[in-house]
Structures are given as structure tokens and as C-alpha cells.
């Protein structure tokens, strides 16, 4: 499953500079050090945090994409930052749990 493929399943593209990137696994979390310590490379990272540190962490932890849950939005400035840093960001009105359930089906 690649990141772009999620657009057909109710996710909205916020920034999609690297849509062909493959997703391998999922991590859910809002505490950034937990994400850096526990998320794996190529995971889809589901969070409700939307500050610029999220973009930095996604870049350093090398996740496939950030998925903003609960309809959380990204500022225009951060969208541009995400594009510049090559970070895919999607959003969904659903909860982290509901998103994880969808991804679980898609990645199976």
C-alpha cells in the first residue's frame, strides 16, 4: 500500500510530496519522544499534534506519512514546510482508533 492509495479510502491530502512511498505498519502517538523511540521507519504515524516539531519528527524518524486524526488541521506555513521537507501529511475526521482499523484492513 502506498500513501497515495489512502486517498481512495476517505483520507485527504494535506501535503503529498512523496505519494508513492510505501507504508509498512502503523504507530499512534502524540508524545514526540515516544514516537521517535517506538515508531519504525516506513510506518504511517497517526497523531493529533500539528506543530512544526511533528514535521521534524516525521522527517527524522523516517515515517511514510503523518495522518492527522480528529479533523486536526495544519497551518499553511506548516503545509509548505512539509512539502519542502518531503513529508507526506494526510488528514481524516476519524479518531486514531478508527483510522488504525481502516489501515489494519488495508495493510493486511
Amino acid at each position: 500500500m502506498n500513501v497515495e492509495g489512502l486517498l481512495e479510502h476517505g483520507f485527504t491530502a494535506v501535503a503529498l510530496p512523496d505519494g508513492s512511498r510505501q507504508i509498512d505498519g502503523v504507530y499512534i502517538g502524540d508524545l514526540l519522544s515516544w514516537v521517535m523511540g517506538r515508531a519504525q521507519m516506513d510506518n504511517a504515524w497517526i497523531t493529533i499534534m500539528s506543530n512544526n516539531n511533528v514535521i521534524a519528527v516525521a522527517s527524522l524518524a523516517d515515517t511514510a506519512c503523518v495522518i492527522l486524526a480528529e479533523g486536526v488541521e495544519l497551518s499553511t506555513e506548516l503545509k509548505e514546510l512539509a512539502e519542502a521537507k518531503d513529508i507526506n501529511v494526510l488528514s481524516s475526521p476519524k479518531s486514531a482508533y478508527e483510522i488504525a482499523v481502516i489501515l489494519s484492513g488495508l495493510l493486511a
Partner: protein
Amino acid sequence: MPDALVFHFDVDGENFTSAGQASTAIKRNLRQLGLPPEIIRRVSIAMYEGEINMVIHANGGDADVIVHEDCIEIILADRGPGIKDINLAMQEGYSTAPDNIRSLGFGAGMGLPNMKRYTDSIDIETELGVGTTIRMKVNLT
């Protein structure tokens, strides 16, 4: 033996929102050198945690990354308050970070444990009222 490659950064203690500039720059530099993604990931996460700590706890400092033939060495030096009890600070969950930092997603007390997790060696020199110097190495072989 060729000279080791050295990257130096001033980490600005005033500017929390730009914290991470040194580690993102390092990530780019190491990529250009063609190092394996997993090595780059370990170096840049360890460095980011250290950089954030210098900003949150020590009002900034200096970061140097040295690319040796057999390892990458990260040296983070600050003139902050020092760490009173290193063993306590190394424990997962221990944090003295204030609430405003927590609301940004930091201050989970996992920074130093992550630095240890992702590097092959970590050495912390600290003196109260003088500062802290952390040396980390990630082996290339």
C-alpha cells in the same frame, strides 16, 4: 587516512520553534554521503533529542558531528545548569520539563533513553552550574 568530516552547528536556546535545524541539516548531509537510511535515522534522532534538550534545559549550545571512517560521533556541549542525577535523568519517564514544553509533545522523559537506544555508546559529562557535554557514537561497521 583521509581527514574526518566535521559539521558544526550553533543551537539557539531562544528559539524553540526552530529547534531541530541542526539535526535536519545533518540528516541531509549524511544522505548526500550515501550512508544507509537506518544509520542516518539513528544519528538524527539521537541528535534531535540532544538538540531539544539543549534548547529546553540548557539555553542552547554547540553541536558537532564528526564522520569518522568507522563511526559517526555526535558531540553536544552546553553551558546550562548541568544534570544533578544522571542515573535518574536516564530513566524513562523522568523529566523536569515545564508544562508549556509538554503541550508541544516534548517532556516525556524519553529523550536521554532514546539517545542511548539509538547509539552504540553515550558518555555524559556534567557539572552543576557549569554545563553538560554529551558524546555519542554510532558505528558504521
